[in-house]
């Protein structure tokens, strides 16, 4: 057998309850358990993902994440504290310097300066987080790893991002390609290096649905103005917007497939990926429906309890006893708070189980590894202890569910 196929063993029930259990622990520890919670969820998802018979293993610990976070928070508190204060000072100094629209512009710049100053940090954190996850992933007992290079990534991401924005998105594929290549070219499995081949222009076909969406919006707006039919322009805008959302999913999926096919390990092991946009979109739609369903159910429960309290007061006979009314309001607000927490947990759980996990399952199952016997010769690599356990990503709250 020279091929290995990706397999996913995860199930909805166990992961959902793992999520609920760890989220409750996070709640009662005022958020401190979240590092352990994320680690446990990762352990589950990694162990559910397999190449051939062998599952991946996540060896990160909640403890190291917590300590990495504590270090990051101090650095960020110092950096952000000074940054915010200086920006506020500049903001107060420019009040009233300009009149009219210039004043509005300076206001906006001062407000967004804060966010713009954070972008390099977000990029830095994103690279470090990926490096940490790689360093804590094993397969067949061998470690993955990633070289240092977060600042190089920040510089490139800023440059490519700026180019993509200045060209109104025309150079987006270039940014996508080179940023992913930067990371892949620094990635390792054991002593074997990954390398990213291919060319960035090959990502253009993936943008076709985004282009169609643009065309729909522009033609719709044009026709709407020409025929004086705002309804037509609105409809075209709506259709174009939905088309664009799906178009970007199509872009991401086709970029993933292409870059996976052009990727090599040790120069000989090759990959194939056949992820499908239709499947990803279907999963997301069903998941969103389930989230709406959960929200409606929670609303109904709240309504029923409210009605029960109201009826109780109305049928108690005679004048309403203020104590009973107070108790009713207390019950109602307690139910409200509990339901609020429960709904948030449910939504998080449903998102994780019905969207995130199912998309991961689909993507992993779409990957095939060719020339697999070469993997037998790969040797272990040294542990990467230098990573900050993605403390910056945790402090800046990026990275999502997993």
């Amino acid at each position, binding site marked *: 057998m020279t091929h290995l196929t990706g397999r996913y063993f995860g199930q909805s029930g166990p992961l959902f309850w793992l999520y609920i259990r760890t989220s409750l622990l996070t709640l009662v520890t005022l958020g401190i358990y979240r590092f352990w919670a994320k680690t446990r969820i990762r352990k589950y998802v990694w162990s559910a993902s397999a190449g051939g018979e062998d599952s991946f293993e996540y060896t990160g610990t909640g403890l190291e994440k917590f300590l990495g976070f504590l270090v990051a928070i101090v650095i960020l508190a110092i950096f952000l*504290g000074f940054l915010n204060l200086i920006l506020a000072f500049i903001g107060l100094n420019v009040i009233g310097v300009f009149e009219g629209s210039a004043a509005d512009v300076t206001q906006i710049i001062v407000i967004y300066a804060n966010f713009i100053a954070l972008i390099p940090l977000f990029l830095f954190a994103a690279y470090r987080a990926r490096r940490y996850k790689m360093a804590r992933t094993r397969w067949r007992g061998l470690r993955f790893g990633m070289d240092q290079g977060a600042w190089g990534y920040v510089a490139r991401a800023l440059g490519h991002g700026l180019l993509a924005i200045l060209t109104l998105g025309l150079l987006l594929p270039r940014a996508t390609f080179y940023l992913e290549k930067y990371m892949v070219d620094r990635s390792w499995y054991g002593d074997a290096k990954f390398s990213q081949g291919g060319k960035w222009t090959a990502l253009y076909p993936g943008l076709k649905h985004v282009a169609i969406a643009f065309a729909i919006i522009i033609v719709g707006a044009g026709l709407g103005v020409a025929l004086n039919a705002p309804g037509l322009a609105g409809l075209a805008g709506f259709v174009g917007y939905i088309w664009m959302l799906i178009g970007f999913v199509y872009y991401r999926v086709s970029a993933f497939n292409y870059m996976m096919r052009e990727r090599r390990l040790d120069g000989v092991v090759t990959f194939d990926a056949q992820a499908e946009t239709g499947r990803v979109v279907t999963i997301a739609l069903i998941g969103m429906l389930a989230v709406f369903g959960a929200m409606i159910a929670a609303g109904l429960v709240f309504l029923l309890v409210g009605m029960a309290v109201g009826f109780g007061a109305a049928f108690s006979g005679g004048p309403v006893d203020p104590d009973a009314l107070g108790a009713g309001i207390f019950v109602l607000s307690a139910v409200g708070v509990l339901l609020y927490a429960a709904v948030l947990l449910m939504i998080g759980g449903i998102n994780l189980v019905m969207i995130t996990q199912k998309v991961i399952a689909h993507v992993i199952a779409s990957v095939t590894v060719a020339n697999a016997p070469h993997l037998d010769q790969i040797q272990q690599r040294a542990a990467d202890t230098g990573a900050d356990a993605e403390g910056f990503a945790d402090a800046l709250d990026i990275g999502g569910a997993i």
Partner: protein
Amino acid sequence: MRSISAARSDVPTGRFYDGEGGLRLDVEVEVDRAAGTLILRHADLPDGAQYWPLGAMRALKDQARADQMVLTLADMEAVDAGLITTARLSITGRDAIRTIRGAAPNIDKRDVKAGTFRKIGIYAASAVGAVALMVFVILPGLADQLAPLIPIEREVRWGKAVVSQMGRFLGEGSSEELTCEGAEGLAALTRMEERLTGPEGLGYNIDITVFDIDMVNAFAAPGGQIVLTRGLISAAPGADAVAGVLAHEIAHVDNRDVTRNALRIAGSAGLLSMALGDFAGGAIVVGVTQMVIDNSYTREAEFAADAYALDMLGAADVSGEGFAAFFDVLSKREGRLGVKLPEYLSTHPDTPGRAQRARDYAAEQGATRPVLTEADWAALQKVCG
């Protein structure tokens, strides 16, 4: 894949990776209870076998697959140096999993390194200490240094903008509609201000406005803009009480408290939500904690403004008793409302304490004379018509 299989059907097997290379060995496993080991047999292993101490064996946790159990070895000094913690043994089959689980006593044990809790304590205490130092010492200090660097004209402009928005903020319509126009009353207020600030005045042009609203309140906006409310003037037991409040607000102006506070709060904004993270209900905790920090800034400023106001009253030969009497009125009103926030949640220091400090100051004062004539006080009370 070169899977070297020597498995007989009746013997449990496992997929073994030695932790140094990617080659898989399908080993036969056997529990040797007498020796306390799990024997892994394969022709390609050194000496044909490896012996895993049952007590050092651990199963990976939070695993998704029910069809296999992945075993690893704990990092223990007692374990043979030839065995390494990166080695992995995957056992498949229900019976084999059950047998090995039964034989390995510590299979679900969590290994916590000695000194871990100490380490957590040191890290957490240092982080909290460093962030607290930043929020309570460094940022306020820097804000205090920067505030005087802002030109007064900018502060005045900003203050005017704040005052003109205040009416909308209070939900009472535009500030222009709210402003009281009684000329004699305003003249009396100006005389009161001049008496308090003395002949040389302050660096600021004090600009006092009276809002026609019931609320008992007074604000100092940046750049010398002071707002008193009609409710405050009616509730005040006398002109000396209004003078105390006015002196307090002038103290805020001269200390540039609003500007300093804006800078301090801007500096610490968002640090907490970052530290506490985003979890269900977390927003409430963040909100309350942010309030405690922000209010500790203002409480400190209020305390200083009270002391400054008393000195101002003293220098103008106005009795501090009026200021104390005003706090008595405030205490009574707070008592009637029936809710009293604990001091750390409140923007102002505890009211009876403030009354006491004013009264103590008054007791030490020499001869005093009323801040306004009877006629001026009557005019001030009618400033809103």
